[in-house]
């Protein structure tokens, strides 16, 4: 079970307190009607799915009930950092493909 540090509660808590919300830093298109079908599909369906470093959103469901981001290794499951929404990760790497 993962131990996740909530950046708002500033506490290390068990995974079952949180729910996962998928890849982070996917901006909602500002002008959806301007997108091609392929761009829209990429926004909706295509994901980086790397084996390695992944930026992802978590929700502290049984805690403060706020969303935050985490940088996690999808192979070793090590969590390198958690940070509030709207911030950029300190650790980046494109092992698993490009955005």
């Amino acid at each position: 079970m993962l131990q996740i540090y909530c950046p708002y509660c500033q506490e290390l808590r068990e995974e079952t307190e949180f729910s996962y919300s998928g890849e982070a830093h996917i901006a909602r298109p500002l002008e959806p009607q301007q997108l091609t079908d392929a761009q829209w599909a990429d926004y909706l369906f295509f994901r980086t799915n790397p084996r390695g470093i992944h930026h992802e959103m978590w929700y502290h469901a049984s805690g403060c009930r706020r969303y935050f981001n985490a940088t996690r290794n999808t192979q070793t499951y090590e969590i390198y950092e958690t940070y509030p929404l709207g911030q950029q990760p300190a650790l980046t790497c494109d092992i698993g493909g490009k955005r």
Partner: protein
Amino acid sequence: MERYSGFSLFKHAFSHHENWQKAWHSPAPKPSYDVVIVGGGGHGLATAYYLAKQHGITRVAVLEKGYLGGGNTGRNTTIVRSNYLWDEAARLYDHSLSLWQGLSQELNYNVMFSQRGVLNVGHNLQDMRDIERRVNANRLNGIDAEVLDTKAVKELVPIINDSPNIRYPVHGASWQASGGVARHDAVAWGYARAANSLGVDLIQQCEVTGIRRQAGAVVGVETNLGFIAAAKVACVVAGSSGVMAAHADIRLPLESYPLQALVSEPIKPVLDTVVMSNAVHAYVSQSDKGDLVIGAGIDTYNGYGQRGSFQIIEHTVSAICELFPVFSRVRMNRSWGGVVDISPDACPIISKTMIKGLYFNCGWGTGGFKATPGSGHVFAHTIAKDQAHPIAAPFNLDRFNTGHLIDEHGAAAVAH
């Protein structure tokens, strides 16, 4: 290749079964092939077999980074059925089911396909409405399907808890009598042996680390055993599909998640069919050896660890114990995980790509074992003709752009 038969079994008894021929050869890779298949799971091996058998293409290599069938093929709970909701999916899985029926004879290898029936249990009114809708759709597609009430379920599975007072009471089920289970390893080994006897090279411990392209077309693959040239490269790597796609600088609408299963100590025969419950994420059957084979849900977050979170199996086991109180004191022997590639519509991708000569067969997620023969069959056609087999056509990669998704998620008894 020596044929397996009652007679050969008898003959080899005289030499104490010590002189059986190896089931396949393990050659060094040749410098070039017509088709390289990446991934030696059931789907990759079946693809190789049908390329050789149906299309006469035998300059084929299957490259496997570990051992044959060591991926999800050898890790799954082996449920086979075809009662999918949508026409496209029903056609694909039913095509597969019809191939399963003659598979042991076709491969001269006992895949232990056992049509013991599959129940998909419903626990509330909405479940039962979905089941009725799906069964009706199945019947229109010529698939044997029935709606059973609680009493009929209890008759089929006397050990099931039919009390109306449990957290998830059994309101009924869909029943596909032609569904069942097969021996997963045997499927990989049977296709491997049959493909090898038709001239396909099976190369284990060979990891593909790059896909070399020239002017928008594939020219071969980089591996730990060096470069191997090929005009066509077909990737059938399940949970590793995203990593493979990145080697070719393309993106796929997939995310990889660990999915777990567990088996108990062997017990006397108590369950002669397959019971699945989507609502509580529990799937159970009993193997011929006597162990209960139990499938759980996927982890909530993506990952490539071939294990899984403990609370997931805890959840499944508590559901199993409620449905089958008689199992509550059975000890579990082993649990393990496999990495499954989940697509947005819970349907596979069997497709050409924008790179000439590069094909992908992936996105089978939690439920591709049942499709092994059909998937290999239609994918071989797609590769040989460079044009989708009619059954495979709806499962192209472009459906995510056109919006023509085949939404099996939620609508059907979708997992496994």
